[in-house]
């Protein structure tokens, strides 16, 4: 039973890394949003499994938040925004897909090497969860760096937050305050982002952050 618990947790956390990878090579916004919904779904399963294994019922709340808010509400809202702004076509990338994937592989390897080497004494479940979580965080960062489009940067940021939640739930017995507050901060972050997208829309008719670069504050 214990072995099974461990394996399933492993599978789900690994699945999250895999979905993160899938996000890296999406070149259409709709597809990207769908993949993000899957990402949130895998996170939900993973958190729920942790709640079961750790006998920590409060983690089910975190799982529910992930499911309702991140797997359903946010992708739908972003979907509508994309339709309304008429930007459903290509996602501009800064670097080619191939190079991005290679960099992603490097980052995953890095997080495994770092985390597993640093935490030999820790409980194995938490330890490998943490290694996967770091990989998800780094992949989210990579996505934010390699995309020019504001919506996909936001998606990158949210996948990064998913990695953080994975880490927080993997750390056994971490106080509830933190999970709730993480959820709250995502909510706030989303409101902020929403406001920004609308303002950007008002001003430029585009959410391509690259277009903003023309308005460099330095006024040379």
């Amino acid at each position, binding site marked *: 039973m214990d072995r099974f618990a461990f394996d399933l947790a492993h599978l789900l956390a690994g699945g999250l890394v895999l979905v993160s990878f899938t996000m890296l090579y999406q070149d259409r916004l709709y597809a990207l949003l769908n993949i993000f919904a899957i990402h949130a779904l895998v996170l939900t399963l993973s958190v729920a499994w942790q709640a079961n294994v750790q006998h920590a019922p409060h983690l089910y709340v975190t799982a529910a938040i992930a499911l309702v808010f991140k797997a359903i509400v946010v992708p739908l809202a972003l979907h509508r925004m994309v339709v309304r702004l008429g930007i459903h076509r290509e996602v501009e990338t800064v670097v080619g897909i191939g190079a991005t994937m290679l960099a992603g592989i490097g980052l995953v390897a890095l997080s495994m090497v770092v985390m597993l080497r640093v935490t030999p004494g820790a409980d194995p479940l938490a330890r490998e969860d943490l290694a996967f979580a770091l990989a998800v965080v780094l992949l989210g960062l990579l996505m934010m760096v390699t995309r020019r489009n504001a919506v996909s940067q936001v998606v990158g940021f949210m996948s990064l937050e998913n990695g953080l939640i994975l880490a927080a739930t993997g750390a056994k017995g971490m106080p509830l*305050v933190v999970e709730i507050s993480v959820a709250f901060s995502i909510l706030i972050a989303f409101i902020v982002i929403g406001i920004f997208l609308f303002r950007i829309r008002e001003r430029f008719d585009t959410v391509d952050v690259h277009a903003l670069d023309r308005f460099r504050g330095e006024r040379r």
Partner: protein
Amino acid sequence: MSFLGLDALGAVLLVPIAAATILIVLPGYVLSARLNVVASLVTLGAAVLLFFERPAPGQYLHVDDLNVVFIVLNTFVGFTTSVFSASYIAHEIEIGRLTPTYLRFYHAMYQTMMFGMNLALVANSIGLMWVAVELATLTTVLMVGIYRTSEALEAAWKYFILGSVGIALALFGTILVYMAARPVVGEGVDAMTWTILVANASGFDPALLNLAFIFLLLGYGTKVGLAPLHAWLPDAHAEGPTPISAVLSGLLLNVALYALLRFKILLAATPQAIAPGPLLVTLGLTSLVFAAFMLYRRRDIKRMFAYSSIEHMGIIAFAFGMGGPLANFAGLLHMTMHSLTKSAIFFAVGHIAQVKGTQKIAEIRGLTVTHPVLGWGLVLGVVAIAGLPPLGIFMSEFLVVSSTFARQPWLAIPLVLGLLVAFGALLLRLGGLAFGEPAGSTAPVEASYVPMFTHLGLVCTAGIYLPPPLVAWFQHVAALLG
């Protein structure tokens, strides 16, 4: 008597949040500006009370000798900035740059930000501290974008993205600290309570703690504006309303630095962990030298002083990184002096930019002729920030340099180089701004000079005479910092 202390701690947090709730529904900017000032004053009063009546550390909040200094400084500058903001905002309404609706939002956000910063300072739980820093950041993001010009939006977007990445890394670091503490302290809230963490730090897993500190340094370091993580800072300072630039430079950077100092103490209490000092020294020196050279090419007056903030945060991080009683003392003193001076400069710059209608350095000339009070105020502020004797910053910089010479002479070379380069850049620009051929509007300015000259007066006094109780207090805190 302990209930009085508890009340003071409660007031530091509850007054801003109550004021924010009222301000969001209160129409009429004159009234809300006044309420903003009153609320900030009450918070300051409560903060000062904390010196005398200190509650016992709880699970979530605590007040100790270290953070009480930060709280009083925070609420003091928050109060003077609210006074400045009242006169600044009146002008913005007049020229129609802000509408009453936005202003309501502005005042509510101002108090929410003060709440976030105060909470970050008194938090005993590292999780709560993280939440509070994030809250303060998000509110400032909204304030930076409040003018809704394309530049302001770009600045706010950049700040938001870089700030969130920083905050995400900091959360990961916080989780790692919890992981390190759990085997020793046990599960639950205790393993995130700072006072308990420090008491048990000697048993923590050093490797995990090292990794945690790297994440925390990158995460909170982004907020401090240490190079190369500073990219958001000049834009955010230049494009937001000037009161916000003053609060960002004077306060928010300090709060982030305070968070780093907390973890530095934690690492110092774990014997086998890496020494956090050299990391801070490296980042501090990089920021100092980099920002000093960047000062030369600035054309926007607020942007220039933003780079000067990076430079000074570099000096402060360097001083705390060096450690030891003298360098820590110098770091604390420099932090206080920088907060006071930089916000005073932004008070002056805010009125100058309003009356001249521009922030371009080339179009602002001869201020001492056209607007003598503002002009000389700016001169005094820049002379202070450049580190000329006998002002307060000279003294703290002198202490940093001399303690470095005594212990690591080689490090003193880049330090002095950075200081001199920045000094030259600031005085070069000041010449044109203050004494050149007058240019631009000469219309009289309706300004409240009280906040500016209060700050500058304090800085001048501190350069000549530091009251012995203050010195004793700072020495005591410096010893705590290790």
